[in-house]
């Protein structure tokens, strides 16, 4: 009886083990048929690395981020599936995420290469454009009595351009872009302010042209007439309608303005006459020709401006405007007078004297000639 029971149990165990073995074999077969996402994940990871190397995290940020998110989703799903019972795992979503990640990474790489090339091209074009603007300033505006902020903006733009070029050379294309855009803002501000100043100044050109033509006409018949061109920084001596001498001239720091009051460092514009000649000992400027500033027109304008409140009630009109020596410094340093080199004032004093007409104009030439046709 007991023997029969044992036999029965043995058969049950053998049957169970057989079932277990068969079930195990089937399970192993099923599992071995499942495709793991290993290769897809590896390919996605490698594609991400290649995209990053191509700067996709900077130049194709959105696509790159999407690719990273898909890779991360693939990993999360893989981990989740692995936590299921082995026979119930399904890696389809994992593989799909990995494949999408790879595709996005490849798109990001391609987009990044294109964007970087564009940025580089734009930077190079911007460098050319900025250099032209800086050169324009150097050729047309550098001698204008510009405000410190304009001057500083020009200098700042040059430094930013250098920084942008360095960033470009080291492959930091976005930094280069930010820097050249900043440089552009500064140089545009400087050039705009300077060109406005120049254009506004030349609004008086027709008046200057009349003054200059009258002065030249007055030189007919052998009279010597002094004609001063402030923009060109030249003092001419005309006789019989021809310029017989020309000297480089310097003015006050505020030379573009018409003199209106004491201490404005401006050089007056209009018709004047030499009232006296100062020789060495009578002037600290080697030699000097004193002009009859202010003339009637200056007084009228001064009174009107005072009435309008444009000039302080306590301000004086100024005086002692001269053509004198000690010049040749290379910049506008006088208090509103016309500075010549000593040898030039010596020569001028030999040619002219008291009573000589002196016409001071902003420019003899029109703006288009002064700017040599440059587009600004």
């Amino acid at each position: 009886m007991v023997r029969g029971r044992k036999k029965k149990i043995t058969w049950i165990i053998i049957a169970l083990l057989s079932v277990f073995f068969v079930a195990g074999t089937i399970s192993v077969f099923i599992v071995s048929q499942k495709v793991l996402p290993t290769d897809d994940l590896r390919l996605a990871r490698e594609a991400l690395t290649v995209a990053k190397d191509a700067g996709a995290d900077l130049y194709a940020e959105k696509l790159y981020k999407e690719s990273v998110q898909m890779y991360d989703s693939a990993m999360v799903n893989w981990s989740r599936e692995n936590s299921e019972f082995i026979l119930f795992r399904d890696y389809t979503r994992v593989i799909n995420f990995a494949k999408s990640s790879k595709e996005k990474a490849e798109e990001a790489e391609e987009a990044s290469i294109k964007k970087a090339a564009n940025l580089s091209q734009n930077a190079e074009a911007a460098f050319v454009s900025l250099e032209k603007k800086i050169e324009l300033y150097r050729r047309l505006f550098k001698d204008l009595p510009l405000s410190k902020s304009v001057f500083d903006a020009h200098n700042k733009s040059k430094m930013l351009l250098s920084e942008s070029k360095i960033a470009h050379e080291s492959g930091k294309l976005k930094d280069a872009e930010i820097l050249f855009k900043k440089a552009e803002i500064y140089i545009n501000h400087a050039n705009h302010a300077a060109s406005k100043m120049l254009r506004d100044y030349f609004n008086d050109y027709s008046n200057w042209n009349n003054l200059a033509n009258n002065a030249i006409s007055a030189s007919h018949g052998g009279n010597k007439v002094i004609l001063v061109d402030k923009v060109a920084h030249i003092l001419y001596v005309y006789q019989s309608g021809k310029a017989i001498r020309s000297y480089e001239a310097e003015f006050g720091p505020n030379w573009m303005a018409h003199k209106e009051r004491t201490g404005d460092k401006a050089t007056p514009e209009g018709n004047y006459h030499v009232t006296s000649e100062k020789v060495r000992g009578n002037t600290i400027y080697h030699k000097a020709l004193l002009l009859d500033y202010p003339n009637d027109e200056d007084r009228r304008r001064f009174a009107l401006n005072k009435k309008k409140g444009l000039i302080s009630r306590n301000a004086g009109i100024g005086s002692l405007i001269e053509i004198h020596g000690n010049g040749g410094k290379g910049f506008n340093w006088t208090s509103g007078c016309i500075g010549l080199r000593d040898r030039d004032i010596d020569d001028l004093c030999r040619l002219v004297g008291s009573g000589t007409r002196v016409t001071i104009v902003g420019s003899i030439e029109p703006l288009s000639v002064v700017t040599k046709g440059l587009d600004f």
Partner: protein
Amino acid sequence: MKSKLIIAIAAMGVAVLFSSCAKVPQTEIDAATASIQEVKDAGADLYVPEAYQALVDSMKSANEKVEVAKAKWFPNYTKAKDQLAVISQMAVDTKAKSETRKVELQAEVEAMIAEVKTLNEENTALIAKAPRGKEGAAALEAIKSDIAVTETTVTEVEALLANGDLIGSNDKIKAAQEKATAIKAELEEAIAKKGGR
């Protein structure tokens, strides 16, 4: 007797089946993740970007190895553990490299600041020797303002350096160095021409 033996074998088989499910090396994963974060906090992504990226890629690869192991009937995390150990060591090395690069960069920037300051002083001294004709004097005025800009840049770089922005200060001081060197060359050329006359 025979049945006892069979029962024992079956029990052992089941025991082996379940006991062989090794645990995920979570401690090693956490340690490696923390070490990478530490390396990032040390600025390695900025100062040694290639080494930092290699570290991040290795971590991703290690995570994949963990999942590959988990996907098996009998997980074996030895390869993943080995890689995680390598990553932890790599992190230490990368952090050290990053620190070294920072020190080098700081020294480079400080040296360039000193160089630009010296150049500015030399340039200011050269201005006194430069020709002062009409064009010369005007050019000197422009050069003086350029020197002023490089001086301002040096001040800005010193502020960036004080804030720990080594990369920004390095790029900026390079531009100032180029400018100051160009100014010096321009002045020396003008002085040489003057001497040649």
